[in-house]
């Protein structure tokens, strides 16, 4: 490993891989770091291992997943320096960062940084969501990719969004026993998405895919309940049953696994720590870094590509990776402005094409209001510190009006996950209790370490 790189890329998902491949073309020095044990991010998680060790699963996962194979192969064959198992825990003001790998903390410097750390599933705080047996739906999909495993008993899926249906489809193909799909999507959402349908037809392949997935679920005889409310998970030591309301009727399924999903949101841990400016995206209700059309953030030398910038899917992530790398090459003096702009045209076209379906999808699948602000006060919001919605409301009423005060008063965001699982919910609760918009209550300040590091590892870390 060198001391300094022209371009340091954090994240080896589609955006990071594409950026690395593009950067290598222009002869700038590149290092890619990812905390996973191999490249692929989440969408192409463990693609190489799955292909070589679990070929039937690989086939089941279909062409959307298999697209990653080419990307990963091109990356590997380009001989780009890649450190897997590297967890970034700290960034410095002077273009350096520290990462932990094999128990040793190392420091590396950069001229330009590309944050390609992607997104995470929006946390879905329903009563009982911390019970063993409750997990994300995209999480189950990732589990299938990373380890070839599926839930062993009866399963129910619940929530909304394309990834809910994709997960359901893959589990059906994997012959998992799915008792039902519980959609929080209301019929009204279809109406409000209708004006965006003509535009979405330009990328009709997404809509056709969605219809195919739904048809597959129907054909498998799996009942779909739409517009469900009051979803709750119950059980003593682990999940035993799922309760919900459908059209005024209470229903229950006895299952061992509940897969919940309400969309994905950008992972802003690194951009917060770097001090980038963020904006509140009202339609999907999340924070994301403020970026220009090349992915440059408000911090000089720091760019973001992929779902970590704004959630737009794997193919846009890949194209945005190319754009960021072209920009990096230009800023570093490796290519001219003309060259950059010309080469960018292809990728802008790709982005425009896939972007066409986004407004429709976002209107059809807004985050479920019952998830944004849990109606039941005993619902856990901060899993790490076991803080309930009611405790947060009480703290707001006591005078803690923004997130840094709420953190101090309730301990939300002080546990190992450092707010990844609760920030958005705390913001929504704080906002609703005060009659404000979430963008007025701030966010948890980015503090190191991004990932846990022991005192011993920190004591011995490179200066």
């Amino acid at each position: 490993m060198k001391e300094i790189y022209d371009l340091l890329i954090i994240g080896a998902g589609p955006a990071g891989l594409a950026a690395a491949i593009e950067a290598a073309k222009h002869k700038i020095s590149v290092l890619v770091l990812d905390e996973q044990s191999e490249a692929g991010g989440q969408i192409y998680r463990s693609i190489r291992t799955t292909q070589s060790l679990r070929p039937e699963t690989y086939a089941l996962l279909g062409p959307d997943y298999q697209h990653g194979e080419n990307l990963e192969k091109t990356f590997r064959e380009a001989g780009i320096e890649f450190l897997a198992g590297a967890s970034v825990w700290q960034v410095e003001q002077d273009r350096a960062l520290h990462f932990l790998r094999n128990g040793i903390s190392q420091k590396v410097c950069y001229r330009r940084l590309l944050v390609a750390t992607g997104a995470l599933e929006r946390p879905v705080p329903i009563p009982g969501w911390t019970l063993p047996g409750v997990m994300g739906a995209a999480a189950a999909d990732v589990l299938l990719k990373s380890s070839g495993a599926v839930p062993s008993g009866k399963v129910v899926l619940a929530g909304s969004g394309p990834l809910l249906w994709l997960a359901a489809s893959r589990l059906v193909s994997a012959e998992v026993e799915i008792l039902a799909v519980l959609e929080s999507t209301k019929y009204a959402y279809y109406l409000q998405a209708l004006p965006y349908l003509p535009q979405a037809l330009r990328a009709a392949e997404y809509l056709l895919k969605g219809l195919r997935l739904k048809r597959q679920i129907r054909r498998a005889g799996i009942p779909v309940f739409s517009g469900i409310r009051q979803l709750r998970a119950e059980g003593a030591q682990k999940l035993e049953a799922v309760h919900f309301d459908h059209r005024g009727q209470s229903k229950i399924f006895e299952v061992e696994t509940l897969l919940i999903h309400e969309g994905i949101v950008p992972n802003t841990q690194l951009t917060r720590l770097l001090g980038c400016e963020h904006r509140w995206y009202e339609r999907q209700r999340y924070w994301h870094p403020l970026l220009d059309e090349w992915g440059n953030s408000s911090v000089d030398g720091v760019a973001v590509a992929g779902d970590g910038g704004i959630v737009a899917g794997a193919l846009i992530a890949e194209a945005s990776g190319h754009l960021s790398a072209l920009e990096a090459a230009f800023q570093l003096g490796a290519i001219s402005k003309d060259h950059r702009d010309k080469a960018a045209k292809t990728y802008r076209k790709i982005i425009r094409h896939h972007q066409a379906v986004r407004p429709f999808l976002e209107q059809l699948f807004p985050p479920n209001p019952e998830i944004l602000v849990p109606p039941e006060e005993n619902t856990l919001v901060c899993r790490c510190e076991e803080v309930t919605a009611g405790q947060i409301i009480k703290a707001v009423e006591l005078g803690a009006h923004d997130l840094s005060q709420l953190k101090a008063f309730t301990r939300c965001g002080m546990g190992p996950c450092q707010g990844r699982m609760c920030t958005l919910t705390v913001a929504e609760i704080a906002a609703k209790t005060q009659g404000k918009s979430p963008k007025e209550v701030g966010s948890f300040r980015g503090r190191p370490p991004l990932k846990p590091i022991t005192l011993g590892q920190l004591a011995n870390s490179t200066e």
Partner: protein
Amino acid sequence: MLKRLRNSKGKNITIWFEEKPISAQEGESVASALLCAGVEDLRTAPLSGASRAPYCWMGVCFECLLEIDGQPNRQSCLIPVQEGMRIRRPALNFGESA
């Protein structure tokens, strides 16, 4: 809680959980291997002592923390199994090892 969809084409691997041998397969994560082996009590919540299990499977929920080969608090959903790995639950006692 979990089962393997198909057996891996890779090696069979033995890992150790709380001194007991567990059959695992090349190319899977530690957390997955344990849950496929029927080990369900991986972690308890710090205050209430309630049982917890992995939720996000991608390294953001921190529910899968286990001690692996003497290194505490590793996110076991991110770490592939290796022959002879020694895994323990997060202990509130910690030993002499630095």
